[in-house]
């Protein structure tokens, strides 16, 4: 696409300076007059029944304004996920704001509001809870055994769901294969580690109307879910949009205890109430689901895949929450859709345990799957002597093919082949040595992984919201305000959307500003998740901008005495095509539209026309026409210290077809952040719990290790391929999540190449490597 002015440029983020000097727009900085501070008392037991709670001592403490126990909160059973309808048949509701039954260590059992945080904390120690401890189970396989503790009444063997699907005849497919490969691949529980804690302030008025400020990734989801859990109509909740929040990575896609409790404490005290998680509370709020994947692949001598079977065991933890949904995305978009096979079958099991809740995390089930799929492909290629690039090219779709999820869509712009070949070339793949052939104590290896099919939003997914809205208003100074309920979670969503608006309107980037709103005055938007914002919100912004531009040019046509169809806008100037001398600024046209009907000029008051009168606006509320798949391949070089087991990632080459690069610097940032989280997932990150008490052992950054800048490779090279997706705004589709889906298997494959040892469980710690080398 030629002639793009704003799209494709690394414009400076509008909030960059604000954030560097402290970021007062972060919800953590919200403070209202008379505000109280809340704290939650958490259960030390992973499974218990509450026999009694005595709050009398706490209530007497000066400064304490309210104490809440299960009997003080609505006993409405809900599911916390924001992005599915609250009453959806596709999810399970099994949570209460405060319950008499504790199902994980750290579950809140009571809450306090006081004049200071210190008093609230002190009050917690004055609440006397009598528990009846119940037997707990932490291992999902143990949880399914006969006689395991029953975590939710009536759920037999703690099995929440057993979804499955398939095509063809998988037995037949394996018979047709010349070789059959199988393996079990395990992944661990990891946390997103966003920077800004989960925090909220609720202000409930005397009529019971709740106004809430919160650090979340879905404004309308918060409104809907909070209303549901409180038993209110949605119109009685107003969620205020923060100009930006300090990270989500999926972790802020569900109702947290703090939001419901702050609303209730506010209603009780008639004051605004603020609750903020400590880092410990953030850690046990939600995490990526640990999964155990069994994968079996049938291959012909020529490298054609004949059959794929997989089964997945997912620990959904104490509550259902995302479990039954994450396993479906995992199965379709993680395990099965990327590689063609005539015969397929998948079976899943979602199990309750007494572990902390599972949540959404960038990639939503796909990193767990990709570790299995991409490791096994490496095993197949190694064993049968195929080049991993050739093997992938042979078994993956091409541009123009029907989309494997929904054949009614086409892979419009789709360049996995280029990702594979260009990435391989940049990495020097052809020079890769034989696995384990490196000499010396420090051994280097190269590995790669691909992810052929992923999402740009959730069109086509059962019961997941996917539409966006935008409002654009032009100002008399020639600038535009864009409003959208999209949440900027730190990746620059606002900037990208302003770029799209500016491009469509013909304004400079600096002339478009994101104006935050709230659920009372903004159209609905699905959350910032599923790699959807550029493609889906971007589409809505483009439609709204086109609408505003049409209105602008209609007024301009009257004032300039021209035909609207003959006008064009660029850099804030409206000109007549072919007659550039006839020009008028956007500012002057808007001024005219906003002017009083009678305008006083040198000749005295002169009437304008009614037709040109009124604020120039554009609005939209639309769903995107499809769900375009990005394509990705990542190549890494590692060095393994065979004396210590330590792995250093030396270099990464990331090739991604994202349709169109809207903002190159932001895109590069996504790749780097994804690699950082991917290195953590591959090599070190892991939430650990006391095997007896279920208490979290890794609840701060001394104990929970994530890579720092020092562990990052100094060379991270991005190859962005612009396939120009026909259904995306300016040809764009998605980027974000894929950046984290591929690093772990690429690193595991590179470690294999370096030392000739294959790992089937993450993280691949130095200790595991040393043990595998027989040195422990």
């Amino acid at each position, binding site marked *: 696409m030629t002639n793009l002015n704003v799209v494709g440029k690394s414009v400076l983020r509008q909030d960059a300076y604000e954030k560097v000097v402290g970021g007062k727009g972060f919800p953590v900085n919200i403070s209202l007059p008379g505000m109280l501070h809340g704290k939650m008392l958490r259960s030390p037991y992973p499974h218990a029944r509450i026999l009694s709670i005595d709050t009398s001592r706490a209530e007497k403490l000066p400064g304490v304004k309210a104490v809440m126990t299960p009997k003080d909160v609505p006993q409405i059973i809900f599911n916390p996920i924001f992005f599915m309808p609250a009453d959806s048949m596709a999810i399970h509701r099994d949570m209460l704001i405060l319950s008499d039954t504790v199902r994980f260590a750290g579950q809140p059992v009571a809450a306090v509001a006081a004049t200071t945080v210190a008093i609230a904390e002190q009050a917690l120690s004055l609440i006397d809870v009598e528990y009846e401890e119940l037997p707990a189970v932490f291992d999902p396989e143990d949880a399914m055994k006969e006689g395991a503790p029953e975590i939710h009444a009536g759920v037999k063997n703690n099995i929440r769901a057993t979804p499955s699907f398939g095509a063809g005849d998988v037995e037949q497919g394996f018979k047709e294969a010349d070789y059959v490969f199988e393996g079990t691949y395990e992944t661990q529980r990891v946390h997103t580690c966003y920077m800004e804690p989960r925090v909220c302030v609720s202000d409930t008025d005397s009529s019971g109307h709740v106004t809430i400020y919160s650090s979340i990734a879905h404004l309308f989801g918060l409104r809907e879910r909070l209303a549901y859990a409180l038993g209110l109509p949605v119109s009685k909740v107003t969620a205020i949009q923060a100009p930006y929040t300090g990270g989500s990575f999926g972790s802020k896609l569900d109702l947290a205890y703090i939001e419901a409790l702050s609303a209730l404490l506010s209603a009780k005290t008639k004051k605004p109430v603020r609750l903020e998680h400590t880092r410990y509370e953030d850690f046990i709020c939600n995490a990526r689901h640990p999964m155990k994947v069994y994968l079996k692949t049938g291959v012909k001598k020529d490298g054609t895949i004949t059959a794929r079977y997989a089964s997945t065991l997912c620990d959904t933890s104490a509550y259902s929450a995302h479990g039954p949904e994450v396993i479906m995305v995992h199965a379709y978009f993680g395990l099965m859709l990327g590689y063609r096979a005539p015969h397929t079958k998948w079976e899943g099991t979602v199990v309750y345990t007494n572990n902390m809740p599972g949540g959404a995390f960038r990639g939503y089930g796909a990193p767990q799957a990709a570790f299995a799929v991409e490791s096994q492909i490496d095993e197949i290629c190694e064993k049968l002597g195929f080049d991993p690039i050739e093997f992938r090219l042979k078994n993956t779709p091409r541009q123009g093919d029907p989309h494997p999820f929904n054949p009614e869509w086409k892979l419009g712009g789709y360049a996995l082949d280029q990702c594979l070949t260009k990435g391989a070339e940049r990495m020097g793949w052809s020079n890769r040595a034989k696995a384990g052939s490196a000499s010396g104590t420090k051994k280097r290896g190269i590995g790669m992984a691909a992810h052929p099919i992923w999402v740009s939003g959730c069109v086509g997914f059962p019961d997941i919201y996917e539409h966006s809205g935008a409002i654009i208003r032009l100002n008399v100074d020639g600038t535009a305000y864009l409003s959208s309920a999209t949440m900027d979670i730190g990746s620059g969503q606002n900037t990208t959307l302003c770029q799209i608006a500016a491009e469509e309107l013909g304004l400079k980037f600096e002339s478009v500003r994101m104006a935050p709103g709230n659920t009372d005055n903004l159209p609905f938007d699905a959350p910032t998740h599923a790699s959807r914002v550029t493609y889906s919100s971007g589409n809505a912004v483009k439609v709204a901008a086109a609408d505003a531009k049409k209105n602008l040019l209609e007024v301009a046509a009257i004032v300039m005495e021209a035909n609207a169809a003959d006008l064009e806008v660029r850099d804030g100037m409206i000109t007549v095509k072919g007659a550039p001398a006839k020009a008028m600024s956007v500012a002057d046209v808007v001024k005219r539209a906003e002017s009083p009907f009678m305008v006083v000029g040198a000749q005295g008051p002169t009437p304008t026309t009614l037709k040109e009168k009124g604020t120039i606006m554009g609005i939209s509320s639309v769903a995107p026409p499809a769900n375009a798949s990005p394509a990705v391949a990542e190549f890494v070089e590692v060095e393994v210290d065979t004396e210590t087991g330590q792995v250093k990632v030396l270099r990464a080459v990331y090739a991604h077809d994202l349709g169109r690069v809207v903002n190159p610097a932001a895109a590069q940032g996504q790749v780097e952040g994804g690699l950082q989280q991917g290195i953590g997932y591959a090599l070190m990150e892991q939430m650990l719990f006391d095997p007896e008490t279920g208490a979290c052992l890794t609840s701060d950054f001394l104990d929970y290790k*994530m890579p*720092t800048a020092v562990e990052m490779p100094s060379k991270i090279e991005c190859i962005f391929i612009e396939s120009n997706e026909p259904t995306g705004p300016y040809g764009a589709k998605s980027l974000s999540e894929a950046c984290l889906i591929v690093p772990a298997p690429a690193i595991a494959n590179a470690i294999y190449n370096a030392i000739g040892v294959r790992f089937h469980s993450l993280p691949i710690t*130095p200790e595991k490597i040393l043990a595998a080398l027989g040195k422990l």
Partner: protein
Amino acid sequence: MALVKLKEFCIPDKPEQVDACVAKYGENALILAGGSFIHGLEARGLLSEVEALVDIRKLGFAGVTAAAGGLHIGAMTTFAQLEQLPELGSAPWLGALKDALTYPPMQIKNAATVGGCLAAACPFFDIPTALLALDCKLSTNKAGAKREMNLADLFSGLFENSLEPGELIIEAKLAKPAGRAASAFIKLEGTANDLAIVNAAAYIALDGSGQCQEARITLGGGVGDNVVRSSSAEQVLLGQKLTEELLQRAADAVGQDIQPMADHRASAAYRLAMAKVFTKRALSLALSRLN
């Protein structure tokens, strides 16, 4: 809940005022230097009995004097100040200290003091391992009464030191070796922002004929309640010509002196294996500095 009983925050500018505050609160008065260790204790709710904090940063005791016989490091010297010392770049015998100072994150270097890192008696820190290998001596002061002690005698248990209430470390002293000497330090860490899983420092001095006349090998990071000195390893080296093979034998001998612990960061077996690897690497690095 952290400093719930805190009543007073004393900022003395004369040593006598320290004594006054300590006399008032006894064991519940806590000396505060850079605060980087205390902050962690506070965050974990371990300071619930503390009634007074005594901030000693106005007392002086900062800066290093390079005497002919060695270095006198004021207890309040920060890691960042210490790192600027020209001697660290030029004297091989100080190699272990120079190496150890590269590990702490910048924010910590700016706050952490030499006195604080020693008094904390935390086996997971790096600077103490290095200073013990350099045979560090301490001067202390309590109500005007001065005391000299070996660093090894400061450590009396996990997070426990042998100082009396109100007794301050004033100075850490390193004597310059007479002969050809060099030292080195290496740390095993999960990330660059981590306390040691294992660390090791080695100091060696050779006589005129190239034989080892002095050796000190120290280890930290979960291999004992405090930093451990491995005399078994040192014995292997003394009086010998230092070959790679001998260094390996010395490294293998550290197992006799350490008691590696198991926690969620590393198993005891891994710590033991790494103690040997890192001792060997520290020895090789020290030796290379002599050539």
